[in-house]
């Protein structure tokens, strides 16, 4: 209908809170900026709500974008939005989290990490570091988020094989450092020196837990080993200081990959329905080498 010189890329982000999300947003924005000549870029922020994200996608469709990058709020709840995009013949690329729908039909491809695997790898690392014997405190992510659910599942799968590894407390801390510090202080009051390990669903919470451990006079890294996920800069620094044991990467920098995939798609190439990132594992052996490039 209207004359188009440039293609429009619409990106529906779920929220922009915390270093990880911001790194993700920035990476996609940067790639879009590099292609300013060929693509217009629009971004929406769902403020952590599926209903708003649905509305955002509808708005993008109304705006007649040519492609949608979608970082879904969670697995359920966006299928109708994907259907609407399909009806409008707009290809969708899912980023970092999956959404219910048929690949190839509702969306072109899913690009992201394997959250279950991330949890599993932390579990295995902790098992090794503690010789299969630990009393673990688990700090979980935002209640109800699929990431939290998967990372909890993977971790449990891993430690199930070690009868002496027990989760003695599991509490939510909302992916936030402040909340984690608070919750951990309370758990320390309840469990005291029984605690020998902490598993946090992201680095922010691990850093909060480390603060709490320190102010309770316990030595993170020695009395209590801590493992988490994300691989952000502050976490790698903590690994170098010896306070954090391990951080499994969950790379937020999707920009290059998703734009490249999209261009391949428009070029008519066949795109695999799942593109799983290879997440690295940072511990004391390699943290120094990567700390500079971390976000």
């Amino acid at each position: 209908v209207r004359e188009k010189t440039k293609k429009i890329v619409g990106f529906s982000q779920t929220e922009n809170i915390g270093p990880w999300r911001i790194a993700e947003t920035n990476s996609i924005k940067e790639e879009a900026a590099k292609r300013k000549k060929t693509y217009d870029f629009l971004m929406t922020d769902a403020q952590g709500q599926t209903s708003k994200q649905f509305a955002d996608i509808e708005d993008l469709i109304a705006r007649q974008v040519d492609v949608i990058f979608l970082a879904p709020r969670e697995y359920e709840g966006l299928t109708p939005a994907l259907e609407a995009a399909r009806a409008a013949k707009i290809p969708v690329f899912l980023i970092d989290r999956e959404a219910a729908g048929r690949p190839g039909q509702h969306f072109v491809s899913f690009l992201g990490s394997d959250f279950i695997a991330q949890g599993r790898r932390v579990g295995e690392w902790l098992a090794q570091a503690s010789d299969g014997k630990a009393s673990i405190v688990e700090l979980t992510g935002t209640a109800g988020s699929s990431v939290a659910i998967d990372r909890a599942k993977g971790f449990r799968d891993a430690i199930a094989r070690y009868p002496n590894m027990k989760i003695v407390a599991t509490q939510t801390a909302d992916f936030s450092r402040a909340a984690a510090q608070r919750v951990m202080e309370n758990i320390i009051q309840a469990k005291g020196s029984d605690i020998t390990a902490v598993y946090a669903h992201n680095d922010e919470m691990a850093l909060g837990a480390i603060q709490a451990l320190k102010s309770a006079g316990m030595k993170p890294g020695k009395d209590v080993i801590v493992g988490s996920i994300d691989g952000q800069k502050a976490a790698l620094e903590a690994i170098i200081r010896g306070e954090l044991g391990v951080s499994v990467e969950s790379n937020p920098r999707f920009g290059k990959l998703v734009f490249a995939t999209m261009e391949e798609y428009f070029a008519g190439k066949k795109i695999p329905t799942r593109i799983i990132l290879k997440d690295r594992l940072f511990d004391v052996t390699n943290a120094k080498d990567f700390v500079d490039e971390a976000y």
Partner: protein
Amino acid sequence: MAATKSLAKFLTSQGLLLILFSLAVFASFRYETFLTPLNLMNIMRQNSMLAIVALGMTVVILSGGIDLSVGALVALGGVVAAMLAGQGSFVAIVGGIASTTLLGVVNGLLVSRARLQPFVVTLFTASAARGLALSITEERSIAVPSAASGLVWLGRGFIGFIPVPVLIVALLYFATWFMLHRSRLGLHTFAIGNNEEASRLMGVNPNRVKLLVYTFSGLLSGLAGVVLAGRLGAGQPVAAFGWETDAIAATVMGGTFLAGGQGSVFPTLAGVILLGMMYNLLNLEGTITPWWQLVLRGGFLLLVVLFQQRIVQRN
């Protein structure tokens, strides 16, 4: 006297319409896709759930109360409906609405019989309802099976070219308007919102009215939750965070007195649409960083409130 009052009323609603209209004109020049039927329908459809919730909020505020539990009740209603969807749409819809209506009754009893302050009561029933929604779902979203076609229709269906949620909103607003301005119950709602003690002495039963009003708000929240679940194809325990504040904002932008006793429902609808249009425009613009969006929204809201209250004060 009566004439100036109704003129005041008209002007307050018109003040909001004025803002709405100028914003729409601005948008239609700036975004070529704004005035497309699709976009306009989107705005209506996306905001129908909030509109339902805001309707309940308006009635509660008119009665001199406030209901902070609406957001949590939307979530609860949605997950209950989704969990029951296997038993068929009818059970799901009724179950979802019944659960929140029950909590609305609890709100009503605590506010009327126990004479507790509505702000506090509903603040804590909100957190209880949210906790309940999270607990019964084990914090997961519950998918609505496609077999529950009635539920899905409620959220996504059409009658003719009109989306079902929009139709529900229209019906509810007309019915509520009629109840408020034509029925005894409506008059009593206004009366206790204006002066509860006087109404009591004159023979109104404030407890009964309050109970009904909070129950109504609970019921509407549940309905909004059910519609939302149908629309998203899932019931989510974390849905509708902060809707209570949006609903309050819409009500007040519509010129309803927060202290109660004065106001109407259709201006609230205009308020909801204004809020929704704000989001829509931010999306159509698409390049404003999220934090600046907050600044714009907060600032704009402040201006509307300022404008609105100036008009009210002048009259």
